[in-house]
């Protein structure tokens, strides 16, 4: 990422340097790996968080827009024709899938509507599941980082303290100035772990509840829409 910066700071500040970079560079290789891993996890988590927050707001907005149009009294045929040409998400996808199934049954020219309601409900169910999967994708990463991050950081800390105690034993000097840098850089690993885990946990909880709300909204819409369709079927038969 900024390796040039790292080397530059390292060269510029020799000796027991307690800046972030200095602490990273002085750490044991295991602690370094832990730190790098945690940094990568943090980056990935934040990427997911940004991505999810964007997609969730988009989904909510599109659902609002669709519901407005749907309940505005517009003809379902017209709505279907305007939506089918482009990829749809959320409620629109559910509506389009149900309408497509409805159309297909009509185009086949079958007079019997037996099983059509079942089919439509199946299609709706599948679409909802697919939509929910899309929304909830990668949320597990957040959950994992949130629960495992502190442990990983703690591992780095324990390892760092272990090595610093070994260094004390080797140097036979219990001066706090000898002990302190090692412990400080070891604790830095825990700090990184917590820094990665805390936003991940918060975001995971938020996105899970948001996804649940969106899912229940889609469920209720699907129920209403299938009720409308079954009323139509009953009228025609």
């Amino acid at each position: 990422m900024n390796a040039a910066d790292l080397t530059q700071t390292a060269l510029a500040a020799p000796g027991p340097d307690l800046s972030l970079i200095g602490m990273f560079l002085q750490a044991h290789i295991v602690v370094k790996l832990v730190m790098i891993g945690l940094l990568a996890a943090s980056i990935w988590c934040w990427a997911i968080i940004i991505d999810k927050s964007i997609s969730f707001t988009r989904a909510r907005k599109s659902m609002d827009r669709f519901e407005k149009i749907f309940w505005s009294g517009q003809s379902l045929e017209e709505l279907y024709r305007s939506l089918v040409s482009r990829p749809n998400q959320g409620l629109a996808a559910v509506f389009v899938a149900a309408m497509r199934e409805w159309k297909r049954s009509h185009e086949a020219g079958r007079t019997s509507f037996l099983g059509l309601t079942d089919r439509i409900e199946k299609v709706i169910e599948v679409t909802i599941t697919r939509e929910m999967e899309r929304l909830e994708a990668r949320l597990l990463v957040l959950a994992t980082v949130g629960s495992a991050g502190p442990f990983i950081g703690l591992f780095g800390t324990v390892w760092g303290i272990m090595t610093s105690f070994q260094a004390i034993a080797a140097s036979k000097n219990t001066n706090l100035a000898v002990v302190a840098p090692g412990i400080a850089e070891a604790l830095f690993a825990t700090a990184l772990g917590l820094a990665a885990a805390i936003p991940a946990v918060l975001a995971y909880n938020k996105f899970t509840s948001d996804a649940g709300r969106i899912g229940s909204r889609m469920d209720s819409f699907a129920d209403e829409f299938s009720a409308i369709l079954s009323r139509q079927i009953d009228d025609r038969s």
Partner: protein
Amino acid sequence: MRLGLTSSVIGHVLLLTWGLVTLPSAEPFEAVEVDALPVDLVPISDVTEIAEGKKTAPKADTASQGKAKPQLPAPQSQRVGNAPNDQKAPLTEKTTDTAAAPTKEAAPPPPPPPAPKAPQPKPPTPDTAKAEPAPETPKAEPAPPAPAVPPKVEVAELPAEPDKAAEEAKPAPVPAVKPKARPKPPEPVQTASIDPQQALPTETPRKTETKKPTQSKATKPTEKAEDTFNPEDISALLNKVDPSGGGSKASTEEASLGSEREVGPVAQMSQSEIAALQAAVAACWNYPAGADGAESLIVRLRIVFNPDGSVSDLPSIIEQPSGPLGMVAAEGAARAVLRCSPYTFLPPEKYEEWKVVNFRFSPSDMF
């Protein structure tokens, strides 16, 4: 996803660089400076006192500081230092005290009374005494043995005040007596040690004791005398405060080594001096070693010393163990004190500290 990833990476890089800039390294802890006392390993004969001064002053000053007592009224300063302007107490020039008398001769400069004392404590008294009419010196020297001298001076003063011809001669005794009376213990002690033939320690304390009465007696008559004569001294007469040199610390002298906070006694017997005294006495003590319960024989004596380190009187027994053995032990302890009598190692400049010592003889502690 790409948007999220790139923005996340950018955010992390920004955060890390910000962290590098704003929290580069921990601030070192600010250690509170303790008012540490400079410690030197000095022979016991040297002065172990801590004087007021500056911590940064050269250490070599310590020894001289012990001799130049802070009681010197001269530099009108609480602390000899080179602070440009530093005043705590207002400068009062005169009091109802006899201090008003000298001002009469030298009217314009108010602080002359301290001035003669200024240069050095000891020399001036003989000098002024010799410079002024000779009769004063004889008076001053017989003075120590007889506490009746101060009254004599008063008697001489009272009738003499009115005549202005005699005034020149009269004010002289006043300052001559004063320097002896004014500076606190050390001076009488030193003069006493200088001429030991007559200055018995029993007298020096008495002399210091008589100081107050003489002054108070002296003030009253002079007040009465001056009330009628000098209307311009009314302010001085009204001023009942003791003369003070003010709080100025300004001085051309370099500050002496010592603590800047005015804490602790200026002169104290050091632990090693007390221990030395104890060891010296213990060496002479034949305590009844074989007796039953000898280690619990604890005797407490009050020893009064002379300035030269000899014991001035038989040590008085404050506490002795019960029974005949206890009496034997107590007498043996008193004898031990007398036998080792001149304790020459005791520092004369701290005489006030070891003039009277309550001494505890305990075989378990001392042997």
